[in-house]
């Protein structure tokens, strides 16, 4: 039982961290209907920047993270400004491919400039375990899960602000938003900037878990799964989806692995996605017929 609980709790926390990556995707999707395949690259770049600001420039931890978040926000804004805005009206698959191209650029530019070898994320989290009775919980995950919840909550609050409401309006209907005087382009750019900043924070957490190198960009796949499962345009959906994916992966692989003698983790996630799509085609909380293919 404790085994199950431990798997479930750790899984849930990891799932929340997935959800944090996915929230960056959702944010952009909500405002512009674009799925950003470069979100993994953003996370990696964010982590690299945090590392560089702290280890190379000697900034403190918090200033380093803030500076990185600001830089990533600028990068997100520039991405929208220079690339995505020119693709308005193109088929979804083209825009997907464009963001994929960005991902490739980031994966080359960032490690190429800052060094490809794995770097430690200089945040002081003790490796000592947190014991909850017999249950062991990873401190980084606790922090990660907490940050994820806070960030998603902040984002939810953000959507109640003026800019946030504008963003929701834009997500509903570009033209109508335009008609009532909402600066659609600026709003979309803002969502990219926020998503960039979120990626920086995500990068810190995941960098602390696995070290900083190019493989952070691989988080994209997991984040994409979570986002789709959640329904792509729902923040609460993303949180729930993250929890589901995290818990299922953890629990099922915990019980099944010994029998099949292999890591079933990814397959479990894949099966979850596959079944969801078959049963609930638009994710858990997604609006129906929102795809624009």
């Amino acid at each position, binding site marked *: 039982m404790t085994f199950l609980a431990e798997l479930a709790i750790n899984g849930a926390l990891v799932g929340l961290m997935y959800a944090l990556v996915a929230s960056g995707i959702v944010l952009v999707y909500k405002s512009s209907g674009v799925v950003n395949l470069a979100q993994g690259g953003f996370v990696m770049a964010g982590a690299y920047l945090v590392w560089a600001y702290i280890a190379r420039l000697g900034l403190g931890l918090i200033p380093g993270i803030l500076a990185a978040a600001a830089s990533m926000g600028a990068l997100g804004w520039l991405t929208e400004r220079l690339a995505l805005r020119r693709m308005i009206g193109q088929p979804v698959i083209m825009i997907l491919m464009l963001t994929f191209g960005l991902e490739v650029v980031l994966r080359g530019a960032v*490690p190429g400039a800052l060094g490809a070898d794995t770097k430690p994320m200089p945040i002081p989290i003790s*490796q000592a375990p947190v014991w909850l009775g017999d249950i*062991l919980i*990873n401190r980084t*995950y606790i922090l990660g899960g907490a940050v994820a919840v806070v960030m998603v909550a902040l984002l939810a609050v953000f959507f109640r602000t003026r800019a946030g409401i504008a963003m929701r309006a834009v997500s509903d209907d570009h033209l109508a938003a335009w008609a009532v005087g909402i600066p659609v382009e600026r709003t979309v750019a803002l969502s990219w900037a926020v998503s960039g900043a979120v990626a920086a924070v995500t990068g810190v957490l995941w960098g602390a878990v*696995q070290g900083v*190198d*190019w*493989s952070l960009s691989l988080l994209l796949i997991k984040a994409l799964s979570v986002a789709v499962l959640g329904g792509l345009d729902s923040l609460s959906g993303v949180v729930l989806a993250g929890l589901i994916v995290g818990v299922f992966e953890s629990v099922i692989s915990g019980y099944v692995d010994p029998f099949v003698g292999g890591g079933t*983790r990814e397959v479990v996630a894949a099966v979850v996605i596959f079944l969801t799509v078959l049963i609930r085609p638009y994710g858990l909380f997604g609006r129906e017929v929102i795809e624009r293919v």
Partner: protein
Amino acid sequence: MRRWVYWVLVLVLAAGLAAVPALAQQKVITFGFPVDYTRVYVFVAEEWTQGMVDYLTLMNLKGGVGGYTFDWRVVDTGNEPQRGIEAYERFRREGATIFNFISTPVSNAVAPRAMEDGVILLMPFHGRSDAADGQTFPWLFSLGANYWSQATVIVQHILEAEGGNLRGKRIGLVHIDSPFGREPIPVLEELSRRLGFEFQSFAFPSPGTEQSATWAQVRRFRPDWVLLWSAGPSQSVGVREAIRNGFPLDRLVSVIWLDEKDMNIVGAAQARGVKRFEAAVPGREHPVVQEILQKVYQEAGKGFGKIENVGSTYYVVGIASVAPVVEAVRIAVERFGEPVTVDKIRAALEMVSNFDLNGLMPPITITPQDHEGGGMGRISQWDGSRWVPVTDWMSAFRDVVWEMVYKSSAQFRQGQ
């Protein structure tokens, strides 16, 4: 804007296309190092290649071997087989006769070609473990303990640490879920039958940056020893999970892929006690490394990479993986005379005997049957700042290893 992009494209592609293979010069032996700089082997490629190239540079600075100097071609393959094949075909036409891809998928994909073309393919610590079988794979050379040998050496160390009796002990294998990660399983199963320990494997999927569920299972197994079988970022994650789960680190033994940087990511102090398999002596004390530092870096300024890398774990692996070839060239000139051809080098490689580069690596003896060279290695331990050897060079359970080798190579021959 539009034109600018077109021109860049045209220029770069044209330059790539126009890169005409230069004819090999006289009395030069060319190595091909199409390695994975950008993907899975990022963690090792830079230092390893640097070690290989710096050693060859040193040889050149010292006037070459038997009148022969060395040349090399380096390119990134991104761990993609088709890019590896392209680089192989290109470098081969540029005169390269000895290859090291530092990538298992690429090495394995190129192996059939190399054997057809008669080109030496080095596979130290990657590629096919059964390349040890020189009869089946005349052109492939492991030149170092393959993963089966590494597993036996580690078990031998555990056996010694436990006072020669493993009956009733539990040994777990935490491995990445890939062919590489699963490779030691049959050996460990065989050894568990022989030595009476209980064995269980725990897989985590690639890229292995999230192992909490795996380690929860490990904890349930309550192992006495854990073998860590992965590479790259997942290694530090694994060590961390071990720490968190309260597993004693001096009972955690890693495959060869664990180095100083991994320890720093975990936290150099926190990681104290972790053990690993070692196939070359890290550090800058060894005379050869000293010589490289002095001649290649300080005097000639021809170092291939960052000077900080010199003497790192993977750097010395690099030296150890070309040194026997250089030795073979020396033997070829001595025994077969000029001109030295790839066939002669191959034959000479099989005559390399008890070569240990003044103690930088375990003594290696290659025969036409044994392309692994004895499968020796040692266990070292992280003392918080550096790796300290805890055993001598050794090999163990050779019969188990060879059984695996022959089984696997037989399978290969079947498909031929």
